[in-house]
């Protein structure tokens, strides 16, 4: 009786989900953030359901397997929008494409009620190092200091900033760290909580054959032919609002993120007052965490084509300035001056507002059909990988939370970058 009551209560909780994003999975993950039936959690330890959204490139399969195995029992996996054979993923549930979140909820209820068995590990249950017969953990030495306890050596010493010899932690972070863009995998040398060195792993989404993200198709189309300005700009506003939402969620402002996402789902739906309320909440919320963090100098971004990131530092470059369709609307790029994390977020909000204004003014007007400013600048110009080199250049020396806010303020979207890089190759 008591046990069944506990089960019934447990089954009716909002479903704790850890989501991993494959090609084309962004919209689902974004809707998981706003859906009241589920909540996205920061660690697989807090999750019951692993949602694999979209098609995973081969590079990401290993990490996803290890994340799956880190989840506590009972657990299950839901595949949504994937083109893969589900039998590769054990007993994973294939989510209904019309309402994938409902499939996740139903699966969770069945799991808690005991109608579904919890999924076993996907990886072999073997210790990271072999049992060597010596020491309390078979590590081949005494205590923590000898050999490799549990297969991991102790950290090596490295000179500290203050001239001390302390341990440097070499860790890989990502590709699915909750505060980093999906797919971004960093190799860090950590000195305490300060990043001493950073290296980026290759963009995993480059391995996918064709861009699956439908929403990008319009920007791609705009490189070849004339498309309605209203559509391009509405899409831009939605993208920018979504990017700000991710950044504020990283800063712990879940509610503001949700408001931004609601607006991003229907950018032209609300009024101007709604946007200014969002602006006030944004400034109040992130002022302390974003102001003065990583000022990017204008000289560094001149000619980089980095779109909002460059304009936040005062670089007045915008491909829309070369487009007769936009000039007719009286388009003039917005810029800011200081180029810190706060400015980058406000720049994106300004540009979202401007995009909506352009969309409403444009009527049936079209772009001229040669080039259009993309989400991160000009797609096809090879600009977007520059965003990644900004990370490599500016993250060393930052405290980890600053590194995270900096990366979030860049609006890195590895799927978009893969698209841009592929165009260069073509």
């Amino acid at each position, binding site marked *: 009786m008591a046990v069944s009551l*506990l*089960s019934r*209560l*447990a089954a*009716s*909780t*909002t479903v*704790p989900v850890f989501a991993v994003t494959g090609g084309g999975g962004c919209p689902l993950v974004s809707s998981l953030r706003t859906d*009241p039936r589920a909540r996205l*959690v*920061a*660690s697989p*330890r*807090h999750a*019951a359901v692993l949602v694999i959204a979209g098609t995973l490139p081969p590079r990401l399969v290993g990490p996803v397997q290890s994340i799956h195995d*880190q989840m*506590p*029992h*009972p657990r299950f996996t839901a595949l949504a929008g994937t083109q893969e054979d589900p039998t590769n993923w054990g007993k994973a549930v294939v989510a209904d494409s019309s309402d994938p979140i409902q499939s996740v909820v139903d699966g969770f209820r069945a799991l*808690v009620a005991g109608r579904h068995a919890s999924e076993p590990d996907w990886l072999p249950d073997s210790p*990271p190092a072999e049992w060597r017969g010596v020491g309390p*953990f078979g590590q081949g030495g005494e205590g*923590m200091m000898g050999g490799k*306890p*549990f*297969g*991991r050596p102790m950290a090596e010493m490295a000179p500290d900033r203050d001239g001390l010899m302390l341990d440097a*932690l070499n*860790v890989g972070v990502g590709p699915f*760290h*909750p*505060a980093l863009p999906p797919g971004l995998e960093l190799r860090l040398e*950590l000195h*305490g*909580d300060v990043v001493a060195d950073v290296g980026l792993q290759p963009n995993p989404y480059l391995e996918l054959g064709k861009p699956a993200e439908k929403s990008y198709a319009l920007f791609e189309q705009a490189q070849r032919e004339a498309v309605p300005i209203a559509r391009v700009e509405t899409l831009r506003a939605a993208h920018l609002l979504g990017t700000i939402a991710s950044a*504020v*969620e*990283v*800063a*712990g*402002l*879940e*509610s*503001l993120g*949700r*408001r931004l996402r*609601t607006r991003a789902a229907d950018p032209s739906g609300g009024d101007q007052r709604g946007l200014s309320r969002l602006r006030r*909440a944004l400034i*109040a*919320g992130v002022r*302390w*965490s*974003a102001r003065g*963090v990583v000022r990017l100098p204008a000289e560094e971004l001149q000619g980089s084509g980095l779109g909002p990131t460059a304009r936040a530092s005062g670089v007045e470059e915008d491909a829309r300035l070369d487009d007769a369709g936009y000039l007719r609307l009286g388009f003039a790029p917005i810029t800011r001056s200081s180029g810190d994390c706060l400015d980058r977020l406000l720049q994106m909000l300004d540009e979202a507002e401007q995009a909506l204004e352009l969309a409403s003014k444009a009527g049936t007007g079209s772009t001229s059909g040669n080039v259009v400013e993309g989400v991160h600048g000009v797609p096809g110009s090879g600009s977007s990988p520059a965003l990644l080199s900004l990370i490599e250049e500016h993250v060393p020396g930052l*405290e*980890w*939370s*600053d590194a*995270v*806010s900096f990366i979030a303020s860049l609006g890195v979207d590895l799927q978009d970058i893969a698209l841009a890089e592929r165009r260069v190759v073509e």
Partner: protein
Amino acid sequence: MSAVASWALEVAAVVLMLGVGAYAATVLESAIARIGAGVSPGPTLLLAPLRKAAWLAKQQTVRTERPDVIGWMVATAGLLPLAALAASLIPLSSTWVMADFESGIVLWGAVEALIIVVVFLRGWSPNSTFSLIGGYRFVIQAFSYTLLSMFVLIAAALPAQSLSIQQMVVTQQGLPNLVKQPLGLPLWIVIIVGVSFRGPLNLPDGRDLAGGTSVESSGWDRLLWEAGRAPLLVVFSAMGATIFLGGWLGPWLPGPVWVAVKTLVVLLLALVVAQALGRFRPESFVEMAWTVLLPVGFIHLFQAGVTALP
């Protein structure tokens, strides 16, 4: 009434304060989050913490490869007793206070210090990078707000001429400390948010650390941790109500009701602040605490001292 019966009654009051208070605080927190997100709170929130707790009770409690098992267990289980100990110090009426020490705020300070140990130990035990960073971060966060809390408590002790918390309430008869020491409550809000690490001061368990000291925590372990964190929020709010809003003092209603009402007011203030602000940078909070808040604490102490003099 026999001594045992009155003891049982007082234990029940502490349990009620922690249990009901923490539950209400959790519901309020999610209601404020919903309102902040532009969604109506809805009645489902009332059962949400119970449902989540039931789920966590059913979840497996995992451990990491080579954890400090004992440290982990002690740390997770340590937060709730500390909150309970602090709760026993709060006077509920002129006669009703479980632990009426002559030096009440000294014990309060000890609880604050032990919270640092517990959170650090929890960050350290799982032998996991992000959890470890969370633990070390909390130490400096706590070093930065603890002094402030000591100044606020000492300032409240000046007019009482005593370190007893009950005495601090009694001397607010007539005029509460909120009026006599106007800087105190805003400073105390910082301490409430910091000690229960929420919102802007969720440095140890933040999203940038994938949950920080809770990154490896699941099942009962996580349930107990949250069941210690929420009471801390309530108990520190209750202390704020006691030393600034006159605790149980008030007309018509019995003392415990006044404590509950005033605690709710302070709690709401703290939750709204925590909801509106993003997580601070550790560095800038430390700098702000030492170069802005601490001097404000000095001014507060000075002002309270001058006001207390006859």
